[in-house]
């Protein structure tokens, strides 16, 4: 019995440490979310582009190379807009700034809000695609039965590796009407 008595506080110490580990690992599960974002931003893993305005190109254009930039779009399930790029493909020199327009048509009788999510293949190229202006930075409101032209201005970083000769930028359009931000709603009602 005496032996067990001396062991009891010891048990408590180990249990406490193990419980702390459990709590830490639970927190770690959630910490994986921001860690994953940081990891993707640094490595371009998963084809994520930087979702913020890039600094305008310094103007150094590498005329010796041409990179094909292809555009594809798709609508998330249940998203009724017509959505597509004006051009399927452009050929650019690294460093050269280009604008490509994307066309959207809301063919429903309701005012709607959409959000486009970009993805780049190959993932490695995502690091070198700089967007100075993009409709994907914000939610996009569109009145019922109306059209809009959404510009996207970009340039490729001249440091883009030699072996990348083609990259594909894909946009998936999501219906965000139910989760629209306040300023987008204000924008839409003022337009009416």
């Amino acid at each position, binding site marked *: 019995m005496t032996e067990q008595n001396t062991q009891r506080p010891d048990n408590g110490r180990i249990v406490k440490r193990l419980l702390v580990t*459990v709590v830490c690992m639970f927190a770690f599960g959630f910490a994986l979310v921001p860690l994953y974002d940081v990891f993707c931003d640094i490595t371009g893993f998963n084809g994520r582009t930087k979702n913020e305005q890039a600094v305008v190109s310094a103007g150094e254009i590498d005329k010796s190379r041409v990179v094909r930039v292809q555009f594809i779009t798709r609508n998330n399930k249940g998203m009724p807009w017509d959505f597509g790029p004006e051009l399927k493909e452009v050929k650019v020199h690294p460093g050269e700034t280009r604008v490509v327009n994307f066309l959207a048509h809301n063919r429903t009788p309701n005012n709607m809000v959409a959000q486009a999510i970009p993805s780049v293949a190959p*993932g*490695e190229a995502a690091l070198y695609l700089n967007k100075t202006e993009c409709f994907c930075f914000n939610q996009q409101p569109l009145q019922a039965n109306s059209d809009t032209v959404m510009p996207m201005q970009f340039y490729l970083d001249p440091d883009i590796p030699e072996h990348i000769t083609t990259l594909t930028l894909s946009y998936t359009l999501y219906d965000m009407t139910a989760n629209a931000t306040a300023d987008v709603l204000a924008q839409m009602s003022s337009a009416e």
Partner: protein
Amino acid sequence: MSTAGEAIQDHDHDHEHHDHKATGVTRWLFTTNHKDIGSLYLWFSFIMFLVGGAMAMVIRAELFQPGLQLVDPHFFNQMTTVHGLIMVFGAVMPAFTGLANWMIPMMIGAPDMALPRMNNWSFWILPFAFAILLGSLFMEGGGPAFGWTFYAPLSTTYSSDSTALFVFSVHIMGISSIMGAINVIVTIMNMRAPGMSYMKMPLFVWTWFITAFLLIAVMPVLAGAVTMVLTDKYFGTSFFDAAGGGDPVMFQHIFWFFGHPEVYIMILPSFGIISAIIPAFTRKPLFGYASMVYATAAIAVLSFLVWAHHMFTTGMPVFAELFFMYCTMLIAVPTGVKIFNWVATMWRGSMTFETPMLFALAFVILFTIGGFSGLMLAITPVDFQYHDTYFVVAHFHYVLVTGAIFSIMAAAYYWLPKWTGNMYDETLAKWHFWLSLISVNVLFFPMHFAGLAGMPRRIPDYALQFADINQIVSIGGFAFGLTQLMFLWIVIKCCRGGEKALAKPWDGAEGLEWTVPSPAPYHTFETPPEIK
């Protein structure tokens, strides 16, 4: 509770009345005895094994011929999902926890588990978890149908309303496992008999010790993942929803960060069981004890570095694919050490082939087959072909059924005389073994070919060219399922009576558990044994 608590204190004071225990249902509800709780865990896992097995029968009946015959696709998906969840969390894991409860205190010369009341809790919340999960099947819209891996957005955007029940049941299972693991760790660290140093512990104790740390590390991550699914589905968060800035691929990273260590949680205790049985029936000490311990630890560490091999087709950079491929293949090294040690133990041993040994031998061979198909899957370029086909189904059933389940059956036959005081019926047991061995291979081996030929998993219907293979597989499945009823009968028969077992019924067996009488008294090692 108070009466049970007093009863236990009485035992402590009064060594004369060792076997005095509460009667009726309260004995089981309030028990803090490691042997009672071990039995509860083992019976519970057996019932879950039969329930999950019944679901497998539904799956195999539907797949007996192409086309949709018996169940609609949505129900089929619920069957594959809940079959997986029940077998993983309801059958294999509780069976190991039951074995740990029964055997670890006896193996290290401890009177009980270190935290007996928590032990009671960790068992008694389990039936509620599975009642919730099984109950969700009867709700409108059905139970979980997104696969046991519950990938987002299947489990968020496209799941039925009962998903919250799935989430809560997984939470409860996780809490139960974590409590069980804490108990195992504290018991092993604090309750070893004097002289029982770490490197003298039986391998079953060692492998469970390492498994418990894996559980502590990854079950909370699973809890986090299901919580994120819950808030994504019901509370408007966007962890896995691209439209809100989340990423569905991230779900797979978080899930498999839990999921890969989880598969080792389901096999490391098996290694311990096999390392006890093979020396006993070979009448030789285990070859390479220390290397077994280090190999187990190495597998546990590596298990945290290989999760993305489940995700080769999600579009990872080549570097990441190579990293995860090589790390995965590296696991074959410590696993190979183990297989080598078991074979070396048998080398020139005086082998006999009682049922535990037969299951252990089948484990060594068939688990190795599952390991080899795992190596094939680890090779990134070919994984693109094998991914989500029946080849994967064949692989993980070889490691989990002929691996984990066979080792649990081997353990049951090996220790049943100690638990019940009676010998099981050796003739029936041999029948059980041979029928299981043949039917399990008829069941799972052809799945390799179906997968290589391109049959996808998780589908209720399939192209005509797979009809023959599926018919053979289903026949094997029905045979294997029915054979397990035989196991149920053998265990019941052994509990009710039979030839009386000696304290040490296997002459080559080693370990403290064989120094106490059979059946093991209600309280053992209240005075610590002396370890030479």
